[in-house]
């Protein structure tokens, strides 16, 4: 299963490293990264592959949220399908 990780918050040093460390530790492969700054908010969107992940989805979700809290960023991880279904006929 592929999922989309969205990280939103004030721009800061080390954001990518912070989250990629969490993902790598749980065997989650990053397939694509996209980042923009919208209205002074840093937005990073990652497409990740969860097939080799060693832990449960909800556990990864908690770990990412925890990592986000440490640097005051909001993190979401959602199944990729939601974005495909909503925007494609």
């Amino acid at each position, binding site marked *: 299963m592929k999922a989309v990780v969205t990280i*939103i918050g004030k721009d800061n040093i080390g954001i990518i490293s912070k989250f990629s460390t969490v993902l790598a530790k749980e065997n989650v492969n990053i397939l*694509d990264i996209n980042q923009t700054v919208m209205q002074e908010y840093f*937005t990073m969107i990652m497409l990740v592959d969860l097939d080799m992940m060693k832990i449960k989805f909800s556990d990864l979700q908690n770990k990412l949220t925890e990592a986000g809290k440490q640097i005051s960023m909001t993190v979401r991880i959602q199944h990729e399908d*939601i974005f495909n*279904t909503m925007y494609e006929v």
Partner: protein
Amino acid sequence: MLNTKNVIETIKMIDRYKFDIRTITMGISLLDCCDSDGKKSRQKIYDKITKTAEKLVPTVEEVEKEYGIPVINKRIAVTPISLIGSASSDKNYVEYARVLDKAASEVGIDFLGGFSALVQKGQTKGDQILINSIPEALSVTQKVCSSVNVASTKAGINMDAVKLMGKIIKNTAYLTKDEDSLGCAKLVVFANAVEDNPFMAGAFHGVGENESCLSVGVSGPGVVKTALEKVKGESFDVVSDTIKKTAFKITRAGELMVKEVSNRLGIPFGIMDLSLAPTPEIGDSVARILEEMGLESCGTHGTTAALALLNDAVKKGGIMASSHVGGLSGAFIPVSEDEGMIQAVNKSSMNLEKLEAMTCVCSVGLDMIAIPGDTSESTISAIIADECAIGVINNKSTAVRLIPVYGKGIGEEAEFGGLLGRAPIMAVNKYSSEAFVARGGRIPAPVHSFKN
């Protein structure tokens, strides 16, 4: 690969514009729970519900997390209890309601619908017992919802049942007087009730349905309003198109999620209900969508046309997005559950007569309307009869959920809390309909119902 714009838009929809799935409702047939011994029948009901729906709440929560879209309510709809109870020799079905309530708490759902009877043409023994049990049943349970279908395009209007329901509503209001007559918020009177409606209080699992199935009701008034803010001043062609596109997106998300829940539970997907359902929260109002179209206040002239457009465009967008559409499907206009509607009533822009007109073009009817506690039974019955006439003649579902708030009058407010919201008490016509309602009998089916 990834379309950043779509990802950001979806997240905004959820975070800022209150996009959510209003309900995932599991329909469960109780037809195999009939027994000549009421006690045994209730044990079968309890066992069946708790077994079939055992994993409903945890599974929905799991999917909710994975897709990141909140599902506000998890509910159950069961076969109308009048059908199940009538096999027994019981003279009162309150115990059935208690068992349903207990089963609902056990599986952790929010509401359970199906304490219902279908009496559009006439009443059986079981129907009569059920209807007479409603006031007490709703006063001793928390999660049980009740509905009675009193009219249909094919059968006409059962005016005996309409008359009786006026009394039942008043009794329910009295028995739940300590909570602003909350019991009436869990009781709806229908014309042309549908068998696969996932929304409360009118949900029940019809006899033509599967053994069990999952239906879903999406929400999203906030999302539609925000989309319309971007097309200010544009023609209605653009307005309609914008609503269609938005309805498409939210319906697709709902269908994706319910199909996933259905896979995991091994229970078939029933239908997608395309209703825009408001909540009392700011930014989640259907009335505000109508105002966004250019009305100074919901209820003013033009409101019915605006609602007709909204209702139609939501259906068109949603039908394209879902494999099976059903339920009520349209915009809901409950008063107490819609922040914009409450404001409109408070500033005398909205009244009962305008709401009645609006029900001609929307999916439900006079919904969650608080009226003075001293309104007579016959006036309530007459309001039901009017609403049934609209449904029967226009071949659509209509419903009445009125709350004659015991001990309160015009200028006061009823407070129900949570999703049920609060309602300013609205005036009813002061002239009597007593002799009209007293006639009883049936209003025959309209000529256009004979299509065979």
